[in-house]
């Protein structure tokens, strides 16, 4: 670093940072960010606390205002003791959305959690390794998908699950999601990659882990729908988006995968591609968390060119027109739609409802603005399971009262929770879109 280097993200030139944008610097050791100045924006109104789903069901949880601006403001350079309650934050990020004053709450939480895991959690504890494995779901999924049938049988063997809870703190209440017998990437290779070539309509697909290993039908729906609209698709080398790693305070793991992703996708952006995600937490990571937490070259570019799949089509195509002419087979199927918290933060919480309103053959009912409660790996932890279900209760009730017996959401873990709490089959909006436009 030369004397002239500024302390902020080298990817962003000095004069392009607006004056009022909060900008952290490296003060604390090993590139931990100094977020104390983020507390300047907080005037303590407590709107974040009243919107926090964990605080609502857990009186012991001090809430996002404490975890964020208050805890940071009380910090001195040499202090290392982050309160353990940071591990009870589910990283739903609703506080970001609730804050009227742009306090970088989830960024503060992510940094504090990473610091707590680094300084306060024993690297020999079961909790650490349980969290580490959950956070690195992709590694396990890679292995499991080599022998999908065997893994699926073992993972949902009752006594084995009980043992998993006892030894490892994984709740025995949930059924493991099944691995697909063919991953999305295997399918993509088998079909010979892109079937549409285009000079000006090009997207790079960030499928994430779940659509690759568990629900390739969602990824396939994305491919078929985008090709239907004439897009050339590439599926580049990629790792995990980092979402489960942020939520478990494993920022080093997340940085490693972010480096792969940013290098992969920023090259494609230079060639005219935009980045498309089918999971709203993945798009959230690329858009918000990467720029907040990492200073990898190309981060700002990737953040600016990343979109959720439906969002992108709504911007660039006449989706309503196309759907107005389409219809879905079946007799007026009703879908109980839940907007994931991370979709909400990207302003996407109404898109599925608005989009399918005019589609014949399907009805969409919004089941309200509560959090599903699973928050990725959170609801899989034995000690968090009850809390997770208590948070989800409101959504379960709304689903129960909804007309349909099928659910819909963009987020794979929200889908698990919806299925777990209601017994409904859960679909992804892309699958509905594919059914209406491509198959229909």
């Amino acid at each position: 670093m030369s004397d002239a280097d500024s302390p902020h993200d080298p990817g962003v030139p000095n004069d392009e940072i607006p004056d009022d944008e909060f900008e952290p610097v490296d003060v604390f050791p090993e590139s931990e960010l100094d977020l104390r100045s983020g507390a300047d924006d907080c005037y303590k109104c407590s709107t974040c606390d009243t919107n926090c789903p964990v605080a609502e069901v857990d009186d012991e949880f001090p809430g996002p205002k404490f975890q964020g601006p208050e805890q940071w403001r009380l910090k001195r350079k040499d202090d290392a003791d982050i309160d353990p309650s940071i591990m009870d934050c589910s990283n739903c990020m609703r506080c970001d959305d609730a804050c009227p004053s742009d306090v970088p709450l989830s960024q503060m939480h992510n940094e504090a959690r990473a610091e707590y895991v680094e300084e306060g959690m024993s690297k020999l504890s079961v909790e650490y390794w349980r969290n580490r494995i959950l956070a690195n779901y992709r590694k396990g999924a890679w292995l499991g998908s080599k022998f999908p049938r065997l893994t699926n049988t073992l993972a949902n063997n009752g006594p084995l699950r009980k043992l998993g809870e006892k030894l490892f703190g994984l709740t025995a209440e949930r059924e493991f999601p099944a691995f697909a017998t063919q991953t999305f990437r295997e399918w993509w290779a088998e079909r010979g990659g892109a079937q549409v070539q285009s000079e000006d309509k090009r997207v790079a697909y960030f499928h994430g882990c779940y659509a690759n290993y568990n629900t390739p039908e969602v990824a396939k729906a994305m491919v078929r729908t985008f090709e239907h609209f004439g897009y050339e698709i590439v599926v580049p080398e990629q790792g995990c988006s980092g979402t489960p790693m942020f939520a478990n305070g494993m920022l080093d793991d997340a940085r490693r995968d972010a480096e792969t992703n940013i290098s992969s996708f920023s090259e494609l952006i230079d060639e005219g591609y935009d980045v498309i995600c089918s999971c709203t937490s993945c798009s959230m990571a690329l858009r918000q968390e990467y720029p907040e937490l990492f200073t990898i070259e190309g981060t700002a570019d990737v953040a600016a060119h990343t979109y959720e799949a439906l969002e992108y089509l709504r911007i660039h195509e006449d989706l309503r027109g196309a759907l107005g002419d389409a219809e879905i087979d079946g007799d007026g199927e009703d879908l109980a739609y839940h907007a994931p918290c991370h979709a909400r933060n990207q302003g996407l919480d109404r898109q599925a409802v608005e989009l399918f309103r005019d589609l014949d053959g399907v009805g969409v009912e919004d089941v309200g603005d509560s959090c599903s409660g699973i928050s990725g790996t959170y609801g899989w932890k034995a000690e968090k399971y009850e809390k997770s279900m208590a948070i989800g209760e409101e959504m379960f009730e709304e689903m129960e009262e909804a007309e349909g017996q099928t659910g819909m959401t963009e987020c794979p873990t929200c889908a698990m929770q919806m299925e777990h709490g209601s017994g409904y089959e859960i679909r992804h909006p892309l699958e509905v879109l594919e059914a209406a436009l491509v198959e229909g």
Partner: protein
Amino acid sequence: MADTPSVLVIGGGSTGCGIARDLAMRGVDVTLVEQGNLTHGTTGRMHGLLHSGGRYAVADQASARECIQETHVLEDIASHCVEETGGLFVKRPEDSEAYFERKLRGCAECDIPTEVLSGREAREREPYLAEDVDRAIAVPDGAVDPFRLCVANAASAQNHGARIETHTEVTDLLVEAGEVVGAAVRHGSGPGKRTHETAGTTERIEADHVINATGAWAGRIGKMAGVDVAVRPSKGVMTVMNVRQVDTVINRCKPKGNADIVVPHETTCILGTTDEEVADPEDYPEEQWEVDLMIEELSKLLPVLQEARTIRSYWGVRPLYEPPDSGTADSEDITRDFFLLDHADRDGLPGLTTIVGGKFTTYRMMAEDISDHVCDRLGVSATCRTAEVPLPGSRDERVLDDAMGEFGLTSPVARRSKQRLGDRASDVLDTEGPNPVICSCEGVTRAELQDAIEGSGTDLNAVRIRTRASMGNCQGGFCAHAMAGELHPEYDAEQATAALDELYQERWKGQRHALWGEQLSQAMLSYALHATTMNRDGGALDPTGTGDADHAVDFAAFDGGASDGD
């Protein structure tokens, strides 16, 4: 004369409290009177710098040597009041290279350890430093909490039998047969702990010797006995930032000037200061340009200050003094040395000694000097022990590292509580009942507030300086009323309300100099909350109709509400 010689100390600042402790430890019967709460005058209005002496190493080497010596003493005896932050003298390209070298040489001559850093090395320590800062000298500056230090001195004095009377104003010095024999005082709410809504009383306090340690007010006290003490009060502004932009004291490396220091203080940074002579230590203008100057000038060292949130500004008056006929024109040039004025020698008036001038960092040394002098006059042979015996709270340094538990508190609150309370932490925090956080900005719990109330009665400003409650970003918006609530049931509603009103006024006094950007939003939110939940914009609730009819709520004007149904 009683067997035990008695001394009346006037002034509850650092010097007065230091003297009270010193004399009490020597077995003298000490009474201290202070017109406000402890630190009410200049002590409570300093920027919290514990001088390594670096600032004086060129112009005033005698002071510099005293500073480094006393800094080491305070690190030992007042560890819970001191934060060893280290300091930097930073040089911008336009600052003189020659002065930088002189500063370095001066420090060496005064035995102040230094380390020269390149601009880059300085920025590695403090990343917010301006990119064009080209060199820096690291010195062992520190930060000190003047409130805690004063209160600890007073508490130690009390433990050694001293009587401490705050909110007690001296109305006259008693002169009998050409000798000062005591003072007439008025207690704001009777002697003892301050209690709002309690009638004041007057008292004659007789003493073998009276010490005038009233700093900028020393001329006023002197006049009561007909002696002339020409204090030249000089005001300086200090601006408080919401968070710590730096964890090291940042000085600008150039000869005297305005706005050249940033001190990390507890959860905040304090920018200072100016130096302008004023006529009256209690009545001088507080002007916005002074605050603007702090931010503008210090942004040259820390550009981030330009956009950062300030939460308040305050002014203090230095008790500068120079012997008659020195004739210094500019207050910045008046010496920071202290003067002991023995009025017997000087004015032919025995029984009275005045101490003026000096610096906070060397308060203990000044107290030792004057105590030596007075003991000499009184024939007391005991020697000073204040440099060796730690203050209450600093007797056991292991507390912070000790795994003594978190008292059921979240880690940052437990840590801050221990930093404030020192070795008193377990006594104060180990309580029976629930111990909620009352001031969430500063992490102050009920137990700590109750401990402070025990020490200072209904005076919530005294509670504030002991605990830091209401000193954070909301400036009491979210906790002032809860602090007042803590006075109940020992004190009644009227007393709590009066105490709350006074705290509000004090918080508002400084906050009104920071009303733009986020702090304006904060003030508006606090206003709206207090107006809508406590009717604080509407005057007292007055069901009996005996109060001010214009402001009382007219409940009769409310109807029964709209009838229900369509």
